[in-house]
């Protein structure tokens, strides 16, 4: 049986009430956010002026999405930026002749006409570019995970708050229609009190074709690609895309997908703003090659008050729950990861948690009884961000929540690297009782690519 279609509310920028702002219906004004409405806040009828920093894999996806929105009159794309000239050239063609092109994102940040930036660079750049954008008054959509270190996360939260910008982090699973259904189902006690959430994922890949270091290709600015990371020679197996399997940048599947799956867990458990008291990881690592993130992995996060346990488990596909969808239903495109929620009255499974979130049928078909609690339903991840820009409301994956999720991923990896259990003090936002681990909460950055 196909699930019932739901009308997902959408917001548009070109409202008929534009008369109040002196805008004729159907004729959008292209203005910078600081010209109208409250200081630093775009007015309801303003088309946002966007720029894209990092236009490769996910960055290219975001750019194509914004081009579609540009054609609908929602945004204007003023600039694209990438450190790979080939990607930049392709992005220029996609974005259109009105978009300026840059290699160095700082040219974008110094422009007064740009309201907001989409940051889809490799993970080790997320914090630095978000903080810089905030300091320049730009609203930010930044890909997940929010940060690579605990200290980076703190800096991002501080910068966003101080500069009063709207941040949306790209854990778009929270904005999927079935994520809303799942959350509503769980929030109303359908499976009772939940004391355990077990996340499942297939292993990280291993590099079967390692190569020696070499000179970077002519189109790539290796210094700028490395950015804040400590210097190392270029290696073909480091980028693009494969940075995900390098601990100092992508951090492996726990950061790449864990940032999605655990985002749903923290949200549905009402645990945003909280953290575990202990983290313990074990796992296997590659036996050769440059990639060094965990291949298989088990991490246990213990939370207190309320008491519950979150686990992250990376194992081959035969260890994950079988997908549920049957003939006639929408196919689960990515069944190999998700989470099982263990409650006092039963269990609940979801698959995905990123661009697609699929909930077990019982949640999809659940009819709320009278008096049932409703939960926030996102109008769409970008739409939710736009609303945050216009109104100042917290986004569904705001920087505080996103840093909390990223911290889980970071702590899991740290426990694995160090080979020991870690204690976390959420109030202090610090690892306690372990000087080495405490130092590894931060990582000095190469000049001038620093926070």
């Amino acid at each position, binding site marked *: 049986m196909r699930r019932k279609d739901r009308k997902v509310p959408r917001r548009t920028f070109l409202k008929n009430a534009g008369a109040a702002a002196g805008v004729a219906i159907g004729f959008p004004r292209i203005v910078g956010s600081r010209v109208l409405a409250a200081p630093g806040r775009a007015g309801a009828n303003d088309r946002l002026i966007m720029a894209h920093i990092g236009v490769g894999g996910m960055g290219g996806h975001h750019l194509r999405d914004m081009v579609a929105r540009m054609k609908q009159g929602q945004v204007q794309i003023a600039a694209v930026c990438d450190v790979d000239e080939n990607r930049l050239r392709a992005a*220029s063609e996609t974005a259109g002749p009105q978009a300026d092109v840059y290699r160095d994102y700082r040219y974008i940040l110094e422009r007064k006409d740009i309201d907001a930036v989409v940051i889809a660079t490799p993970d080790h750049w997320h914090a630095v570019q978000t903080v810089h954008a905030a300091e320049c008054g730009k609203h930010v959509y930044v890909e997940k995970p929010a940060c690579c270190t605990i200290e980076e996360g703190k800096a991002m939260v501080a910068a966003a708050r101080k500069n009063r910008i709207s941040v949306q982090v790209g854990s778009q699973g929270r904005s999927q229609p079935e994520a809303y259904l799942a959350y509503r189902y769980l929030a109303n006690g359908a499976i009772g009190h939940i004391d355990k959430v077990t996340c499942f994922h297939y292993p990280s890949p291993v590099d079967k074709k390692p190569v020696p270091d070499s000179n970077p290709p002519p189109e790539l600015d290796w210094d700028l690609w490395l950015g804040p990371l400590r210097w190392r020679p270029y290696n073909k197996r480091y980028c693009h895309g494969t940075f995900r399997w390098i601990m100092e940048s992508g951090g492996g599947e726990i950061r790449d997908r864990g940032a999605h799956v655990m985002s749903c867990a923290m949200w549905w458990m009402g645990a945003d703003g909280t953290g575990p008291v202990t983290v313990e990881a074990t796992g296997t690592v590659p036996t050769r090659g440059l990639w060094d993130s965990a291949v298989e992995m088990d991490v246990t996060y213990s939370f207190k008050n309320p008491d519950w346990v979150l686990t992250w488990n990376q194992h081959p596909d035969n260890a994950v729950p079988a997908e549920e969808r049957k003939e006639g239903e929408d196919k689960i495109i990515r069944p190999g990861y998700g989470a099982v929620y263990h409650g006092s009255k039963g269990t609940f499974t979801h698959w995905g948690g990123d661009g697609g979130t699929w909930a077990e049928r019982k949640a999809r078909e659940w009819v709320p009884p009278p008096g049932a609690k409703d939960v926030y339903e996102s109008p769409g991840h970008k739409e939710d961000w736009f609303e945050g820009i216009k109104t100042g409301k917290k986004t569904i994956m705001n920087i505080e929540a996103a840093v909390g999720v990223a911290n889980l991923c970071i702590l899991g990896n740290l426990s694995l690297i160090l080979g020991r259990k870690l204690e976390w003090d959420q109030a202090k936002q610090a690892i306690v009782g*372990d000087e080495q681990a405490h130092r590894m909460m931060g990582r000095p*950055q190469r000049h001038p690519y*620093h926070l």
Partner: protein
Amino acid sequence: MNTQDLIARIKDNDDKVRADAWLSAGPVGAPAVKPLAEVMANGNLEVARAAKHALWKIVRHVGRPGADAEKKPVLAELIALCGDDQPTAVRREVLWMLSEISGDESIDTVAGLLSNDELREDARMTLQRIPGDKSLAALQAGLAAAPTDFKLNIVQSLRQRGVKVPGAPCRKLVPTKKTKVRKGARVDT
């Protein structure tokens, strides 16, 4: 496993033998540090990598709480590896190891590398990370002695340590790199 066994296995042709060796290297400790550093310069890429992983395993093992007695001799070995007789790549890696577990004992050695063009940035970041007054003083002395092109790097470290340097601008937001791609470019098909 003793040092000799460890090194023999690190040099093995079998990936799994090498991996099992470096994963178990932690307790071998200080006696293995210098031999592993020598293997890091091995011409076989995967053997060199295995040696590096083993050295890091030792550093993470002796960095655990309550392991000061094991850490001290490892630190002494690592500090010795900062000398001019060692390859730059080894010294760079050792600096980051020191940044995780060293106290005051390595500061003089690390500070000496602030004048080394290839290693000065890693040395700076190491001093930034090691807590305490001695590392801070080393950064301040380093600033006074640094050439113009490196001064702002050290200023950044001091800023991170809570020390403002009057008259030293922060350059982090200053764009410097131009693209050759022209606006409205089309991809050649």
